[in-house]
């Protein structure tokens, strides 16, 4: 790995760690699993750098690596890997959100509910919902998923309906 590639990895990490964390939080619930999946995604991202030829956008690449890793990641193997890994992820909630009057606190409650609901969807639909919530265009979603734009539309509508069912009471536009 060259210095250039190492710098690219550091830059990617600084720029996209929140994106990666959203993927992690979507596919893993417990802090231990999140730590394992986070490291697994970063490991795959590191390994993928030599293959990145700037034919696709950076975000497309990062989403692909993160989602592909999350889709094939197995919780049962996380314990085996744990023996060789150190905890490196430290997620800190910003203290003022604990104040009940704060809007951030309400948002956090909503997000916890949303994450719980997304985790109940089939894995393939979780990824479509995740990309939709991150406001990606159909074209970008199609490039990440490897399906046609019309197929993205069909699948997204189906996934949104399921999500609305799971979030009954919170979502009211379907």
């Amino acid at each position: 790995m060259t210095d250039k590639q190492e710098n690219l990895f550091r830059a990617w990490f600084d720029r996209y760690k929140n994106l990666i964390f959203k993927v992690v939080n979507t596919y893993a619930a417990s802090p231990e699993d999140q730590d394992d999946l986070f490291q697994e995604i970063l490991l795959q991202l590191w390994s993928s750098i030599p293959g990145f030829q700037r034919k696709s956008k950076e975000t497309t690449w990062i989403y692909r690596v993160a989602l592909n890793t999350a889709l094939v990641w197995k919780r049962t193997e996380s314990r085996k890997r744990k023996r060789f890994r150190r905890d490196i992820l430290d997620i800190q909630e910003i203290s003022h959100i604990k104040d009940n009057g704060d809007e951030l606190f309400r948002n956090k409650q909503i997000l916890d509910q949303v994450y719980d609901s997304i985790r109940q969807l089939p894995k393939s639909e979780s990824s479509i919902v995740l990309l939709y919530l991150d406001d990606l265009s159909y074209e970008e979603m199609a490039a990440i998923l490897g399906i046609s734009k019309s197929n993205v539309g069909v699948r997204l509508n189906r996934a949104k309906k399921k999500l609305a069912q799971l979030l009954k009471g919170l979502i009211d536009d379907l």
Partner: protein
Amino acid sequence: MTFDELQETWQSQQSSFKIKIDSDLLLKEIQRNKKHFEYTVLWRDLREIVAGLAVAIFFLYYGLKSDACAWALLLLAFLCAGVVVFLIADRLVQKKKKPRFGDSLVDCIQSSLANVEHQVWLLKNVLWWYLLPPGIGIVIFVGSVMLKIIQNVRGKGLVDILLFLFAYLVGSFLLFWGVYYLNQWAVRKYLIPRKEELEHLLHGLENSPTVTTAEM
């Protein structure tokens, strides 16, 4: 709340938490993990290849050294070497087909599925490419030794030797059956559920017959 409002809330989430990581430690950890993974794969491959080669060399050595049944030992060595060559060739071919995580989800799942299907094929057919070649060699070798003994030894000694050879054949058969059973168990326990999981994932993404991969 509408979906648009949900999108807004979703996108505001980075303001509610802070991810703290020492990037130097992270890089070290990733490099360590990568090395560990590569070492594990290399060790697994080497272990199988070295074990096969050792058996082949053992029979080759005794085949060249001994006067009796040399051809049977050389045949056994040749068959064991054949298994090793098949293993190496298969690993090299499969290395090129390894799933790439920078591919689209459909492409990556398809490669992972092909990979698992190949593993299933290998283990289901372990009898033909792994067990039968040395198995045939052992049967031929033991048969030729028995023939030689029948021609040259008489009395109680003959019965003892034949009993020993028979026990050797039964022992080999049980060992081979154990290996076969373990492989089929691994297919049922790990590979088939994995294959079904990947098929389900793939089906979840593409069930239209005219799926096209969009390029960005």
